[in-house]
């Protein structure tokens, strides 16, 4: 049916879209070590992503699909990056400071979605562990054609799920006792 060059061209076009984004591992994995360095605190919470009424709670980050949070500390310009995993719970080891959870990037296959968060939280010296809340990201609008990610602006909410979170911390991190609650809050009105 087709000539050989035609088939080659057709195959190239079909597969041209695969893997063209040159990705490397995230800059800094805030959970790279389970040993807390001196002066650092465990900061924990959760990100709930709701897409068209359903919780997305199975994150298995790899180079072609991830939900990545970006943070800045104090006046630093060096982003800290963290890929959501599992049910979206996170346990970061961070030194004291003023942090801004600036944005997230949701990447899936060939779609790259960036949205601002701009939520701030404080880590005081000596506090550990610190609960900063559950960030709920709710997408309700349309989707990108032929792709799986949403296309609209999400609504953002910070919830206090301390009871559930402290139970998870005890199980996941074999930690006893209570945690300091210091919920993040949005830096600006929407």
């Amino acid at each position, binding site marked *: 049916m087709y000539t050989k060059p035609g088939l080659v061209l*057709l195959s190239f076009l079909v597969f041209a879209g695969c893997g063209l*984004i*040159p990705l490397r591992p995230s800059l800094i994995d805030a959970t790279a070590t389970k040993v807390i360095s001196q002066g650092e605190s465990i900061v924990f919470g959760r990100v709930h992503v709701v897409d068209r009424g359903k919780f997305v709670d199975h994150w298995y980050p790899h180079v072609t699909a991830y939900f990545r949070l970006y943070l800045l500390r104090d006046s630093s310009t060096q982003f800290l990056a963290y890929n959501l995993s599992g049910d979206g719970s996170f346990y970061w080891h961070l030194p004291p400071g003023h942090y801004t959870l600036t944005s997230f990037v949701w990447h899936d296959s060939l779609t*790259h979605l960036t949205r601002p*968060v701009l939520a701030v939280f404080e880590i005081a010296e000596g506090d550990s562990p610190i609960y900063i809340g559950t960030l709920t990201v709710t997408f309700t609008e349309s989707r990108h054609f032929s*792709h799986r990610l949403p296309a609209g602006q999400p609504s953002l909410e910070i919830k206090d799920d301390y009871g559930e979170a402290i139970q998870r911390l005890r199980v996941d991190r074999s930690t006893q006792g209570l945690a300091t609650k210091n919920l993040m809050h949005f830096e600006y009105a929407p």
Partner: protein
Amino acid sequence: MRQDWLVAFLCLGLCSCGYMNYYAASPLHPMEPSRWAYTDSYDPPVVDSLSPTLSWETICQTRGERYDLAIYKTQRVDDADWPVGKRIYFREGIPTREHKLDITLRPNQAYYWSIRVPCLAVTGVSPTWSRFVYYSNWSFIGSGCLIEDFPFFLFATPPQ
């Protein structure tokens, strides 16, 4: 006949990527560079000054002519991510569709900028921040479009 069909099929595929979609407003300055092909990931336009004048046109029905402008630092990370950084500029109630920044930006730095437009919606006025989506990478019937969905517009400053 078969060749005509093949050509039409390929043209359909090639035409399916390579454009930008704007929401709420589209930027007039800095102007997007003309692109003969949309085969690469997005590169922001470079402004001509460290205190540039930004201008835009609205693409939704609006009530009144009052705009808010916000500028955030950003940088390309991992070749593909453009995380939002600190907000460094915010002006409310701009009465025209252009604004000259009254601060000096850093040279060789990328910035997000966005206009909050008083778009009319069914429920009344729905202030909406402008943003855009960049579709690149020619491929087959849209299956391989690289979609970069940005939260705001982007520009970069020139060297000093």
